[in-house]
Structure formats: C-alpha cells, structure tokens
C-alpha cells in the first residue's frame, strides 16, 4: 500500500473544482454530484463529514479509489486577435483511501488519505501567456486520523486532525533572450502544515439525514524552495543569481459543508449539499526571493479570490442488490477575480454532470465507477496588472474507479 501511495504521490495532481480545489473524495459521492456531507455510506465519511463516521453501516470499512483527470483549457487572446492556445495537460490521477472501524458501539476511528487540493497544467510550448505561466503542478495530500462518537441514535459528532503535505513545481518564461533562447524560472518546493476537520451528523429514522462539517484553512508555506533560472545570458548573470531560493505561500482554504439526504424508498436515495469555500483567503501570490537584485525584486501577484458557494445534488438507485446507478450535478462558480485571472489557475464557472455505477459481486465488496464531466463556461478574463487577457474555456473529463469493502 505504501509503495502504491508513493507512486501516486508522484503523479497525482489535477485541476478539477473551483480554484485549485479537487473534490474527488469517493467514487460513490462523485457519482451523486459530489454530495457527501450527509451520507453515511462508508469510511469516506472520515473526510466528508467526521461527524457521520460513527453512523457508518457495519463494523469495518475500507475504501480506495483513483480518478483520471483529462483536463484541457483553450485560450483566445483578447479581441481583436486570432491568437489561440491550448493546454496539453498530462493525465493526473488524484486518489483517496479511507479506513474506519467501530471501536465500541458508539465510537468509531478512521483515517483518510486524499488529495483535496491540486492543479496541474501545461500550456503549449511558447504560448503567449508563458511569461505568467508555462506549466504548473501543485498538490496537497492530507492525512487525517479521525474519531467520531455517536451521542444518541440520531446524532453523532466527530473530528479529525489534518496533516497536509504540499508541493509546488512551476515554470514560466522570462522576457529575456540569449544564445540559449528564452530565459526561464523554475520554482520547486514542498512543505507541510496542520489543520482540523470536524462535523456533526443528524439522522432521522424516517430516512432523513443532515450533516454539517468544517475543514480549517491550512497555509502551505514553502520556505527556501528552489528558484532556478535557466538560459540567463552571461551578461545578465549577476542580475539573476543561478541557484536562488524562494519563499512562497498558498492557502488551502477552509470549507463549510452542509448536506441533506433522504432515503425516499429502499432503492432510492436523493440528496443535496452546499459546499462553501473560503477562497477569500487567497489574496496574493508572493514570491519572496532570498537574493534580490535590481532586475529581480520580490514578486507580488494579486489574486483577490472570493468565497464561493457550490450547489450540488444527486441520487442513487439500487437496480438489483448487486447494481447501483448514480447521477448528479453541480454548479461551481469561479472564485477567481476576473481582473486578476492568471492562466496558472484557469478556473471558470463550472457546470458539472456526474454518473456512477457500483457492482457488488458479494455483499461485502463493491466495485465503484464514476464519471464526471465539467464544462468550464467560456468567459473573458484578464490579468490586468500585466495586461494579459482573453477568453478561456475548459472541459474536464474524469473517470474514476474504486473499491470498497465493508464488514
């Protein structure tokens, strides 16, 4: 398992939800439009709502899964212009792993390992926005040990301690040309920090469930990351110290989630969720270079994101005891300020449709597949401080597969 995790760590970065949030936290939740807060399906509750974990069915649950993110962004330069560019993103593979067990009748313990934030994109070579970003790979992996307690039959609470490991790797061009071509800046660093996740779950015997959870903001503060300048002409070498270091900080914003679900019939489950993301925390992206020169001051890049409310809805239908079908959708307005829109995170208003299926060869084992299709609605955006604007449009296609085992 650890071998697998470390391989995944190396390749799992993605661009999926608003900003650089990734909400692929379980194939069954994905199939239902990413609702999860009020669901007590399995160990995935440890992440989706720690309060719900003590209400999971059975004594032991193990869930694992992986998604493949096929994302592409198209750009057309601000009118009048016929210039267009596209991303040529590598496949990214966010994953999730959850395990939980009932320690007593009322107390559950679990662990969640997943990738709630990330962003990976590669713009085509030498594209017009390369002085802002050529490629970026950003990711956060969180590990969250969790305890949950069922206070009454109808109410349970839970909380988890979150350790987040974050890594950033990005490259942009500098408008400096020499014998080796255009100069480049490559920034690479990683860091870790702590936070928490807490929730409360209410279940009515008539089939209603409600959940509320909160995940705290975690600031990823890279200190002394590598800032490597390449292709710097020798006559400018002193202006761009070759092996510079950089401090850069990025918030993983807090989330507040509220979910409602209803087991309408023994075969039909419907639900919705409100996912509020405190994106306002992302005001500025600062590159604080260890060694500054006249040509290399620290770089302050305004972002000025806004908090967003994402509305999600979905349902699950049991066709036979072995087959479940799911469908859902959501609308995810962009947190990005249209005047400070950087192509490093081309996050648009997203309209998403989801579907999913589970197959249970034996009652304890479920093989779950999901499909998420996101349309990033075309919009004119600009990065005003550097006079770079245009229309962006995205399409993201995310198939996923997972298994869950339950006793």
């Amino acid at each position, binding site marked *: 398992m650890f071998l697998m995790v470390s391989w995944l760590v190396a390749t799992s970065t993605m661009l999926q939800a608003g900003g650089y949030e990734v909400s692929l936290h379980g194939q069954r939740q994905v199939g239902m439009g990413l609702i999860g807060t009020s669901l007590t399906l399995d160990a995935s509750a440890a992440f989706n709502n720690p309060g719900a974990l003590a209400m999971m069915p059975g004594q032991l649950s193990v869930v694992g899964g992986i998604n493949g993110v096929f994302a592409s962004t198209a750009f057309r330069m601000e009118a*009048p*212009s016929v*210039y*267009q560019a596209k991303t040529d993103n590598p496949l990214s593979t966010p994953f999730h792993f959850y395990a939980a067990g009932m320690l007593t009748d009322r107390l559950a313990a679990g662990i969640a390992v997943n990738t709630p934030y990330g962003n990976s994109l590669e713009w085509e070579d030498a594209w017009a926005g390369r002085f802002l970003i050529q490629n970026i790979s950003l990711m956060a992996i969180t590990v969250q040990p969790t305890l949950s307690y069922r206070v009454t039959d109808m109410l349970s609470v839970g909380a988890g301690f979150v350790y987040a490991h974050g890594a950033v790797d990005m490259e942009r061009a500098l408008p400096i040309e020499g*014998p080796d071509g255009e100069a480049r800046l490559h920034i690479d660093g990683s860091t870790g920090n702590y936070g928490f996740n807490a929730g409360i779950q209410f279940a009515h015997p008539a089939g209603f469930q409600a959940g509320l959870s909160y995940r705290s903001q975690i600031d990823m503060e890279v200190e002394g990351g590598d800032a490597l300048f390449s292709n710097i002409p020798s006559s400018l070498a002193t202006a761009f110290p070759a092996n510079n270091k950089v401090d850069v900080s990025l918030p993983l914003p807090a989330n507040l989630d509220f979910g409602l679900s209803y087991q309408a019939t023994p075969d039909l489950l419907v639900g919705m969720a409100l996912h509020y993301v405190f994106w306002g925390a992302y005001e500025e992206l600062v590159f604080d270079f260890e060694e500054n020169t006249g040509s290399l001051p620290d770089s302050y890049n305004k972002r000025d994101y806004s908090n967003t409310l994402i509305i999600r809805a979905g349902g699950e239908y049991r066709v036979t005891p072995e*087959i479940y079908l799911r469908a859902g959708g959501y609308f995810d307005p962009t947190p990005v300020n249209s005047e400070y829109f950087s192509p490093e995170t081309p996050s648009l208003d997203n309209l998403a449709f989801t579907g999913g299926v589970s197959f249970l060869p034996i009652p304890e084992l479920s093989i779950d597949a999901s499909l998420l299709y996101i349309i990033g609605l075309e919009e004119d955006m600009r*990065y005003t401080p550097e006079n770079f604007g245009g229309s962006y449009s*995205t*399409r993201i296609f995310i198939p996923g597969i997972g298994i869950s085992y339950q006793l």
Partner: protein
Amino acid sequence: MTKTHILPLILLFLASLLGGCDADIDAFSPDPGEADFTTFVSLGNSLTAGFMDGELYREGQHNSLANLLAGQFMHTGLEDFNQPLMHDDIGFGNRLILAEADGQPLPVPMPGTPDPENFENKYNDAGPFHNLGVPGARIQHLLFEGYATLNPYYQRFAADIPTSSIMGDALALNPSFFSLWIGNNDILSYALDGGEGEHILPPEDFRVAFQALVGQLTQQGASGVTANIPNITQIPFFATVPYNALLLTDPDVVALLNNAYAEAPHISFELGPNPLVVYDSDHMAGIRQLEKGELVLLSALNGISNEGWGSQEPLSGEYYLNAKQIEHVTNHVEAYNDIISETASNFNLAMTDVNQLLKDAEPGIYFDAIAFNTEFISGGVFSLDGIHLSARGYAIVANAFIEAINSQYQASVPKVAIGNYPGIQFP
C-alpha cells in the same frame, strides 16, 4: 451474465466521450469594416522599413511595422505584400549587436562584410514593392523624383532610379489602403546634430507636404492610417545620459578638476554626480556646466566614460541640446502633430497617437505580460541604436495602428501577439 457486461460497456462509453473532452473556443472573426485592404502600401521612413539596431537587415524587415500590419491585414482581405528584402542580416554593414564587456551588455558593430547584392536594385527581379519605407526619408523626399540617386536605401528598390519618387511607386500599385508615417527625420536630423546643423522644416512647409501626400494617396478613393511623431524626450538616444553624468568618487580628482577650471569660477565639481562641462558660444565664458533638463546625446557616452569628455574636455555643441533647442524641437513636434491630426481628420484617416504611446511606455507598461519601458537596451521598446524600435517595439506600435484603424473604419483587424516577436538578444 448481463451484470458482468455492464462494466466493459461503461468503459466503452467513457472511451467514446474522451474524444469530446477537448476544450474548444470560437475563433475570432476578423472584419475589414469600411476599409478595403486588398492592396496595401506603406510609406514612410526607417520606422516603416523595419530599420533597427542601426541598420536595415533581413530579419528586421520581417518584423517591420509595414510587414506586421500586412500580416494582420491578410485576415481582412489583403492578398499580397512584397518587401524589398536585404539579402542577409548584415545589410549595409552598420548593424549593432550586444557584446559582453566587463560582464555588462554593450552595443558593438556586428562583424561581417556587406554583400554587394544588398546594394543592388531589386525592382526588376523582385518588384514591385509594397513596403516603401525608406530609411532617412524626410517628408519632402516622398515626392522627390530622383530621390533614389541620393539615398542608397531607396536606390535598392526604386522602380526607376533616375526618375522614381516614393509616392510615384506607391500610386503605381493603385493602393486601396495605405499607411503614412513621416516627419520623424525632419525633427531627428536637427536633434541628432545637437541642434547645430540646419533648422527644422517649418510647420507651414510640413503642412503643404503632408496635405499633398494624403491628397495624392486618397485621390483614387484609398483609405489609410497615419501616425504622429514621438518627442525626443522618450527616445533613449536623448534620454539615457543624464545632464550630470560625471560621477566623481575620488576627492583628488575633484580637486584636480576644480583646479583645472580655476579660471572659470562658475564651473565647480564635488563628490557625487556633477553636471557635464560643455562648450556654449552663447555663454560669456564659452564654457559652462549643463543644467537639469538639458539632453546629452547617447553618442557622447563613450567619450564621457573613456575620454574625459564633459570634464577634462568640454563637450562640444553637437553632443547636447540646450533648453532652447529642446523647446524648438518640442514646438515643432507639437506643430507637426497638430497638422497630422487635423489632416487625418479632414481626410477621414485613422490616426495613431505614437507620441502618447511612448509617453505611456516611459515609466513602464505591460503588453501581453511582458514589461516594457523606454530605457536603452533594457527597456525592450527600442533597439540597440537607441532611436529605432525593436521587433517587439514595432509590434506594440503595429497594435496601436490597428486600434486606430479599427476605430476609424469600424473594422476588426486582429492585433499581433507581442511575445511572438523576438526580444533584444543578450550575449
């Protein structure tokens, strides 16, 4: 059995969707509006020709204002655009490149012998030409029949060397659209002599010539774009060397200089930056120190740095512009620009405010996420000669031309992407 078939079916469905998951964006629709770009001729001087780094050379011509405009007009109906290209990137042999000296980039002459072919007239082999920008041309030269006998850059491509005029060659192409950017050299030739040479063409004469040019070009119904003239205060050749460029750090040198000028008590030196000493025949003593606001020409820099100019040896009049001369230049630039605006308006032409564009660029400006300013070498707008634009500088100006055209003719000519053009090449 049916259940086990579901998963492969879903996978097949997923695979089929993959083809449709590529983001797409509608193309921009260029539109000529009320203008007709079928035949485009470009008249002007070095700035139209593609002159940069002190020379007209092949790569510079590819990035000429005229060629950049033509490339965009191809989207709105232009069929053919022919430039009188040099055979190579040496041209007549005056090109500058950057070399490393003491770890600093410094413009030096590019090595290489000019190919005789660069001087030969190309009209019969490769003409006629649509880029009629001629380095060195002043406004009255455009109507001058036989100008090719005086200017080797025109001699290269004139239809008939003894009798052709630039305007005649332009009209022979029966243009539907033209660009006309002229007058810069009338100002510059005065300023480049430090105001010591001949006077600037009076505005009355400029008006007559400009109206004649526009009148002839529009006679057959062509529309077009013109542009005004930047002031010299934004041009690195005049804005790089400060009036107080004499930096003294050694008290002994200060004492030595004060001693040397003991007989001219109005001249004194101290530690730190000092105004340069210049010859000035209007001054009682014949020499004085420069005052703030006066402009030193870039051509004096080497002498100041290495030959004691402005300190041991006063700077002669052709290397600086005094306040009166600067005012003379500024008045003429303003008068010319008023005439250009007024004429453009009378003839319903698009008018590009290059004067304002360079003023805006002076403190620093971003285009397409590239930072520019008007500083010498590092600023990116001007080429290594400090007078002519760089490839990206021409791209910036081309976009300003396109904005003016689109606004005047309700057209949608697409702009260029600035970053697609080469920047200054550092060693």
